[in-house]
């Protein structure tokens, strides 16, 4: 990273008309040096418009912590198309329309469109009541249908094939009089991938806002009844126990136990190579076979868990890249040998959750309030399994398969010479991939080579160079005028962005990073700053993890670290949930901890107050 652009300090000397610090306006952002042509990577509709200077935008580093490769902008375009459709047009949330996004210097900024006119809110509320009411009342039945549909989508995306385009087409085209040659299916199947991705996101957001809505209402009730209750205490009353996202980690623990039981545990050593271990297991007789077949069973579907959050093509799944699971296995194996590997204490977690809920209930002033509390908490517990489990099906399982299919289309483009390598497909926007595939379809039909190499290869090379340059740019945490009040609890919950976060962004204190105290306790230790999930193997025992945002597949490292700090995240974020389970301090939603803390610095994490201090 460019040392001149490290730290938030250099982005905030701007002064507002009132004399206080302010965020830059979108129009004031200069092009990152060496990447002046970044606009050529992204569609025109992602660019800031002149009127956008009048609105408040914040950097969505929770979902998009890195500069966007051109193809990966689909993980902003499609989700925002789906979530806005569901909130604004399908369920007709009374006070909010959708989310707008813009890209500047490769980073995604977002803003929400509120509805403020009381008449319009009233008109929308009537529709919302009927539609949302229908979903809440039939939640479990609709959920069962949802799960079937989403599994259907996963089956479909998994089964999509890329035509081989051999010299002669299959004889069956003739004998079955199909009448359609396989170059047709290049485009059709590619479009199916894009269309399925869009369908998946529509289903993803079909239940999500309703699920969060139930949580927000309970959250606000608790804050009103107990003005000083911490966000995490509310979260702990609702949190699911049998959450599917813990399953991949549970599977690894099971495999570690089996390794010891089957007498093949000697193969799992620190730094072991996954292919070498798998090859050696095949030579280890019955024990080795038993482990390998258990591994196969765990693999599908549980290894379809991304090392990221499903928003970047290079966040590979465990199934694609065994580095993460094989980095965790030696530690688990050692714990099994020492008799130290414990299952998640689900019973005591459940008992503690119920104790907290009933303690707060007992403190309520009247039976009336207790009855309302029971209803709201009850609804949360009905909807929350969806909120917690959808990620595995959508962002992990489906999306891992989606990126694998796109990579296979990339391989076709590489085979036909348009691209140098399959991975380069992710440097093209999906509409550009469409053009490149047309070139290949035409060339196969014409019996001539495609002409795309001269067109696309320089573009790909230039974009890779620009992405590197964009990595050195420090995105301001927010742009535009600070709103009067930013009390939207949904934004707080999802992104950890509150009035306090914005204050901290505007006035960073020396040697101190402030965020949301998400899990209590105070510890000191050396920091390990990860800006990219692929660095996960660098984490050492006793370190304090500092990261942009943690993904569920990071669970294995939580056994190693003393505390977790993240740039983005609220009290319901993954880092917060897992840290509470491990009983370690966590501070989330700091805005810029990864920029202001360096690996090796000694830091003190105060999970009660939400403060991280650099000590040395």
């Amino acid at each position, binding site marked *: 990273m460019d040392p001149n652009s490290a730290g938030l300090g250099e982005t905030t000397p701007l002064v507002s008309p009132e004399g206080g610090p302010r965020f830059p306006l979108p129009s004031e952002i200069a092009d990152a040096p060496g990447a002046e042509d970044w606009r050529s990577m992204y569609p025109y509709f992602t660019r800031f418009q002149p009127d956008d200077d009048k609105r408040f935008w914040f950097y969505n580093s929770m979902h998009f912590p890195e500069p966007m490769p051109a193809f990966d902008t689909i993980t902003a375009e499609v989700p925002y198309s789906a979530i806005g459709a569901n909130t604004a047009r399908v369920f007709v949330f009374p*006070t909010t329309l959708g989310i707008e996004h813009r890209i500047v210097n490769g980073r995604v900024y977002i803003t929400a469109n509120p509805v403020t006119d009381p008449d319009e809110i009233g008109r929308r509320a009537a529709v919302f009541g009927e539609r949302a009411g229908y979903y809440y009342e039939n939640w479990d039945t609709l959920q069962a249908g949802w799960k079937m549909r989403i599994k259907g989508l996963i089956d479909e995306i998994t089964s999509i094939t890329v035509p081989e385009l051999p010299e002669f087409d299959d004889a069956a085209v003739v004998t079955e009089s199909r009448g359609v040659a396989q170059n047709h299916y290049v485009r059709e199947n590619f479009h199916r991938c894009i269309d399925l991705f869009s369908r998946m996101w529509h289903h993803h957001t079909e239940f999500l806002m309703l699920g969060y809505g139930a949580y*927000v209402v309970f959250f606000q009730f608790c804050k009103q009844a107990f003005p000083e*209750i911490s966000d995490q205490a509310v979260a*702990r009353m609702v949190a699911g126990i049998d959450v599917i996202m813990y399953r991949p980690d549970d599977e690894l623990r099971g495999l570690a136990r089996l390794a010891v039981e089957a007498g093949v545990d000697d193969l799992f050593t620190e730094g072991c190579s996954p292919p070498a271990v798998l090859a050696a297991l095949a030579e280890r007789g019955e024990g080795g076979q038993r482990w390998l077949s258990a591994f196969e069973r765990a693999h599908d579907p549980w290894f379809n868990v991304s090392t990221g959050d499903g928003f970047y093509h290079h966040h590979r799944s465990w199934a694609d890249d065994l580095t993460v699971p094989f980095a965790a296995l030696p530690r688990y194996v050692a714990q099994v040998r020492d008799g130290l590997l414990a299952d998640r204490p689900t019973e005591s977690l459940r008992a503690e959750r119920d104790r907290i809920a009933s303690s707060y209930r007992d403190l309520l002033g009247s039976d009336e309030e207790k009855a309302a509390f029971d209803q*709201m908490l009850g609804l949360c517990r009905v909807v929350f399994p969806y909120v917690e489990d959808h990620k595995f099906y959508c962002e992990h399982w489906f999306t891992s398969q989606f990126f694998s299919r796109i990579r296979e289309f990339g391989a076709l483009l590489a085979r036909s010479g348009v691209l140098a390598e399959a991975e380069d497909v992710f440097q093209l926007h999906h509409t550009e991939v469409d053009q490149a595939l047309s070139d290949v379809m035409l060339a196969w039909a014409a019996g001539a080579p495609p002409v795309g190499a001269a067109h696309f290869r320089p573009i790909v090379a230039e974009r890779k160079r620009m992405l590197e340059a964009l990595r050195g740019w420090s995105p301001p945490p927010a742009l535009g005028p600070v709103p009067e009040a930013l009390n939207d609890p949904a934004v707080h919950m999802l992104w950890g962005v509150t009035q306090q976060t914005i204050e901290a962004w505007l006035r960073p204190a020396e040697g101190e990073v402030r965020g949301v105290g998400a899990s209590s306790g105070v510890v000191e230790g050396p920091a390990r700053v990860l800006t990219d999930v692929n660095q996960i193997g660098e984490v050492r025992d006793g370190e304090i993890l500092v990261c942009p945002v943690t993904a569920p597949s990071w669970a294995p490292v939580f056994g190693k670290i003393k505390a977790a700090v993240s740039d983005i995240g609220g009290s319901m974020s993954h880092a917060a949930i897992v840290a509470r389970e491990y009983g370690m301090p966590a501070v989330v939603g700091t805005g810029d901890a990864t920029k202001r803390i360096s690996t090796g610095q000694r830091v003190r994490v105060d999970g009660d107050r939400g403060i991280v201090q650099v000590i040395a």
Partner: protein
Amino acid sequence: MTQPFTCWTTEVGAADAARAGGKAAALGELARAGLPVPRGFVITTAAFLLHMDGVDPDGAARGALGTLAADDLAGIARAAGGLRARVVGQALPPEVAAEIAPACAALGDGPAAVRSSATLEDSAEASFAGLQDTYLAVRGTDAVLDRVRACWASLYNDESIAYRRRQGTGEDGLAMGVVVQPMLNPRSAGVMFTRSPVTGDRSVVAIEGTWGLGSALVGGEVTPDSFTVSKVTGEITGRRVGVKLRVHSFTPNGQGISATPMALALRRTPCLTDDEVRALARLGRQVEDHYGAPQDIEWALLGDSPGRFVLLQSRPETVWAARDRGPIASPQAKASDHVLARFSRGL
């Protein structure tokens, strides 16, 4: 030792406010509940009433106070000043003094705290906080006997009478007990509310404290350290370290306490560790559970690490208890109606 005019604090309980005064009754109640309270004895209201028989035999002076208007401060000052002078000037009934001297001896020959315990104070309706006098680091039986009369006289402090007139509390049957305890030399001391004094939140304990005697905090001479602890999770959810510029202390041989500048090293240092904060909050909950209502508690921490907490007083919290708020939510026909209504109202 129950005698006509004195008894141990452990010999009274919540029901004995008429005999011992509110503070003594509360201390006895805490001790009976097994909570840590310094030992001490009570000079009962019978002693006060006997003394007043000599000062104001027909009760005319006291009765006259009950006819004054609450805002007639000049009239109150005139009437009360005369009565106080007579309470202090009148010799202690010999039978009372004869009981106090051996009780003092039983406490030991160190300095003592002599604290007012009026029959009306610390009730659930009104705290009467700080209106009657307390004397710290009182040395020698003669000084104690003086301070007992001073405590009695403080029932007729101008502000005390004005407060009673505002509250519409009659002067009939009003009496004052006195608690005498060995003087404590705490490491830290302060107050604790078993609900938030700021928001009324019943799920937290709010603690304030400073180094040394709690009188510096109660008297408003320091900006105390403050802590908020969740009753449910035990988490310390709020913490502010005050800049504590002064400290109250006493010398073993001197009379009374002195206020001196706080040692530099202690000014910005929290007067309680996190473990101590949590232990104190647990103690607060025990008191609240015993009474079944939020409490306003005075505490002190004795000895070096790990230290030992003692409670100096507990009274019902009166401010938030009086603010009867309506329910913030009512059950709906369907649970989802809560969500529909909330989202239709705006965020």
